[in-house]
C-alpha cells in the first residue's frame, strides 16, 4: 500500500486520493498564456508540485512528489504554504 499524508487526516492509502494534476506556472486568465495553460502542462523529471484531493473528506492539498522515484517529499494545504 502506498501512503500519502493528508494535512488534515494524516497518512492514508493513496487510493483514497484523486490526482488533479500539476500546479501550473501558466495562468489561463492571461491571454498570452492561454495555450500554455491549456495544453503545455508541467512534466519534469524531478520534484513536481501537484494538486491532490482526499476524496472522503474533500480536502484539497498540494503534494511535492518526485516524478522518477515516486517519492512524496511534502504535503500541505494550499493556504499554508511552508517557508
Amino acid at each position, binding site marked *: 500500500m502506498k501512503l500519502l499524508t493528508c494535512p488534515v487526516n494524516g497518512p492514508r492509502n493513496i487510493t483514497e486520493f484523486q490526482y488533479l494534476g*500539476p500546479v501550473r506556472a501558466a495562468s489561463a486568465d492571461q491571454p498570452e498564456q492561454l495555450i500554455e495553460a491549456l*495544453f503545455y502542462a508541467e*512534466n519534469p*523529471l524531478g520534484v513536481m508540485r*501537484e494538486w491532490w484531493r482526499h476524496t472522503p473528506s474533500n480536502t484539497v492539498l498540494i503534494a511535492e512528489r518526485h516524478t522518477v522515484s*515516486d517519492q512524496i517529499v511534502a504535503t500541505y494545504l494550499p493556504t499554508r504554504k511552508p517557508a
Partner: protein
Amino acid sequence: MPFSLLKYGLRARHVSFRDIPPTPDLKRSYDVVIIGGGGHGLAAAYYLSNVHGIRNVAVLEKGYLAGGNTARNTTTIRSNYMTEESVRFYKEGVELFETMSRDLGFNVMFSQRGQLTLAHSEATLRSFHLRAEMGKHMGTRIEVVDVRTVKELCPHLNLDLGGQHEVMGGLWHADGGTARHDAVAWGYARHAGARGVEIHQRTEVTGFEHAGDRVTHIRTNRGTIAVGQVLQAVGGLNGQVAAMAGIRLPIRCFPLQAMVTQPLKPFLDILVSSANLHTYLVQSSRGEVVIGGGSDPYQLASTRSTLDQKEHLAEGALHLFPFLHKVKLLRQWAGITDMTPDYSPIMGASPLRNYWLDCGWGTWGFKATPVAGKRMAETIATGRVPDVLKPFDLRRFDSFALLNEMGATAASH
C-alpha cells in the same frame, strides 16, 4: 533436413547468422539521424533506405534495439477510432500489417482475428454507433453487434446478465488483430541494415548544436556527429529529448502496465476489451493471456509495476472470464506513455527546419509502427508532409484544431 542439420552441427567452422548488424563506430556525419531504435525509428529507416534510396542513415538507440516501448506494448492492431483523420491514418497502418510478413520476408505473426469492445450501458452503445458509422464511411470492417453475436464471437465470456457489468452489445472490428512486436522491429532492422543503415545501440543523445533554425550536430555518449536531417521517435520521454533541441512538447508521462498469465489451452481467439472495466485481454499464440488496461492515475516517469494496477487488471479479467481465478501470473511490466492533450500523436514538422517529430504516442503507438515509419520517411525524403499526416501537426494546439480521441480505446486515460 535432419541430415543437413547434422552436417551443419559437425562442420568445424560455423558461419554465424545475424539479423541485426553489429554497432560500428560513429561516422562524422549522416544524411539522416533517427533518434530512437524502436519500431517507429526502424520502420522509418527501412522506408528511407529501401524505398527512397537514402542510405547514409544512423539509428541511435540509448538502450538496446526495440527494448523500450516496442517491447512493452500489448500488440493490439486496429483502426476503430472516432475522428476521420485518425481512422484514415490507422486504416493504412492495418493494411501495412496485412502484407508485412510477405513484404519483409520475416514472419511477424500477424493474426487478424478481430477485436470486440463490450458495451455495458446504452450510452456506450450510442458512442459505438458513432464509431461504427465513421469506420464504415472510411471503409473499415466495423459494426455494432447485439449480445447474441457477442456470445457467438466469444462463447466463454461472462455476460453478467442482470448484473453490474451486464454486456449489452459490442463493437466488432473484424480488421483488428495482433502481431509479434519484436519481430516487427527486427524485420525492419534487418532490411534497413542490409541497405547500409547503421544501427547504433547503447548510443544516447546528450545534446544538440544549432545554427539558426537548424540542428547541425548531435552530441552523444560516443561522440558528436553532423546531421542533415533528424527524426525524433523515442517512444517515451519525448518531451525531455525535444527540450534538449529547444522544442517544447505538450506531453505528460504516465506509466502503462500490463501482465501475462501462464500459458493455457486456447480459449480466446479474438481480442476482447471492456469499456467499463478498463481491461482488455488477448491470448497469445503461446497460450498466455495478455491483460492490459488504463494508465496509472498520476504522472510518473518510471517503469516499475504496482500491486494496485495488477489487482485492478485481475479484477477486470476475472469478471469477464471467472474461470481464470486460479491462473498464475507469469510476467508484469510497465512502459512510459507520452500522453498528449487530445490523445492523438504529434507527427510532422517542428519549429526547427531539419528536425522532424514522430512522438506523443501515448498508449496507441504499436499499431501505427508501419504507417508512421512509411509516412515519416516520405516526409524526410521529400521535405513535404503528406496529407494523411497534416492533421497531426504540433501546431494544432496553437489553433485549437484538436483531434480528440479520448474514449477511442477500451481503457480511457
